[in-house]
């Protein structure tokens, strides 16, 4: 018997801002749609442990898609002469296009890092369409700690430097196998893609002036951040949570910037209660 995982991968045709894309996604489970957003410069494989966790997939239909230009979602025709640059508008439009094309009803959207940032914008602008948002390592703003110009230039290997920059942004307790699998995603991203994602993260998404307007009675907001995250620090998340009335913040021990992939067993302890609470709310 082949040892098959329950994950199924497919391609979806969508159009975003008038440009056609062929988007790869993986899914497993049934119930409340849970759309998972990968971090900058990586892809949906980061969520494989959630996709294979029966505790989650028995009440959630978990979907993880690769943003265009990432993983198995190709860049659009003509990419060879374009500089990839993610903006708040493009990121929002892409996620909403995916959810609508898949005909998902009130999906819960969970994102890590830049995905943890964009869910704040989604809660504000599209809260009525969503069941809840979960920001992993998310905040309304954070201080940069390196110059992104180093990520894409001919004299520095992009994959190697992207991985080496992220290597210490995980908890030292996280298992080696999972840490290196997380870094493999960074080693594989296309030239300039991490840098292009960070345009959104660094330049185009200072949400400090708007998160207080999020209405958590329309769209509940959960923020979970690892104590070892020095990129989006626990202080950044706590400050953001204070501004969003009704939001729930958890600081996770022994986790860093990539909780879902750097230590799936440890992350599970924190995410299961959140998912149970959201599912309970939906049932009542």
């Amino acid at each position, binding site marked *: 018997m082949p040892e098959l995982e329950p994950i199924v991968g497919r391609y979806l045709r969508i159009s975003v801002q008038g440009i056609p894309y062929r988007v790869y996604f993986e899914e497993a489970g049934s119930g409340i749609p849970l759309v998972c957003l990968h971090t900058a410069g990586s892809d949906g494989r980061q969520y494989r442990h959630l996709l294979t966790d029966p505790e989650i997939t028995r009440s959630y239909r978990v979907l993880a898609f690769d943003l265009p230009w990432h993983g198995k979602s190709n860049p659009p025709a003509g990419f060879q002469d374009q500089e990839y640059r993610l903006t708040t508008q493009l990121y929002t439009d892409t996620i909403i296009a995916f959810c609508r094309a898949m005909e998902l009803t009130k999906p819960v959207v969970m994102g890590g890092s830049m995905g943890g940032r964009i869910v704040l914008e989604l809660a504000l602008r599209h809260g009525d369409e969503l069941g809840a948002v979960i920001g992993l390592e998310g905040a309304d703003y954070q201080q940069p700690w390196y110059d992104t110009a180093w990520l894409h230039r001919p004299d520095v290997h992009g994959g190697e430097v992207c*991985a080496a920059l992220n*290597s210490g*942004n995980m908890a030292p307790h996280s298992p080696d196998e999972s840490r290196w699998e997380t870094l493999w995603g960074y080693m594989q991203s296309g030239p300039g893609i991490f840098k292009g994602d960070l345009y959104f993260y660094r330049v185009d998404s200072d949400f400090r002036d708007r998160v207080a307007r999020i209405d958590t009675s329309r769209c509940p907001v959960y923020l979970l951040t690892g104590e070892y995250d020095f990129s989006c620090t626990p202080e950044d998340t706590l400050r953001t949570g204070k501004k969003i009335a009704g939001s729930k913040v958890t600081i996770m021990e022994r986790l860093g910037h990539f909780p879902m992939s750097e230590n799936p067993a440890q992350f599970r302890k924190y995410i299961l209660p959140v998912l149970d609470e959201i599912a309970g709310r939906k049932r009542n």
Partner: protein
Amino acid sequence: MLEKLSELVNGSPPVVSRGRLVTTEIQVMVGRDEYCIKIEEGRIAGVEKGPFLMRPCSLTVRASAEAWGKFWQPYPPPGYQDIFAMTKRGEAEVSGDFRLLMQNLRYFKEVLEAPRKLAKEGRHA
């Protein structure tokens, strides 16, 4: 801890291999103590303790003895597990040839983190 660097790095063939294009001298400041680390094709060719006068080096990494002490623990506390975590919080400073650093970032991070192995093995310099 840095005195053992030759043994720690040279005893790890994958680390030496990752630094095969690195031949340089770097300076590590532990508080006021100055160390000059000579690297030849990824191997640590020597570690000398200063003070030195105007000795040229390609990179300088500087932190207090307390900060390095936390950094070299097998399981460092949050904010001390990575050299850039320390620079972000103002506990460390990196200066010099950033092109050399970024071209070989994994190698240089592994060299700086090598003393953690001593603590893991219960051997302190």
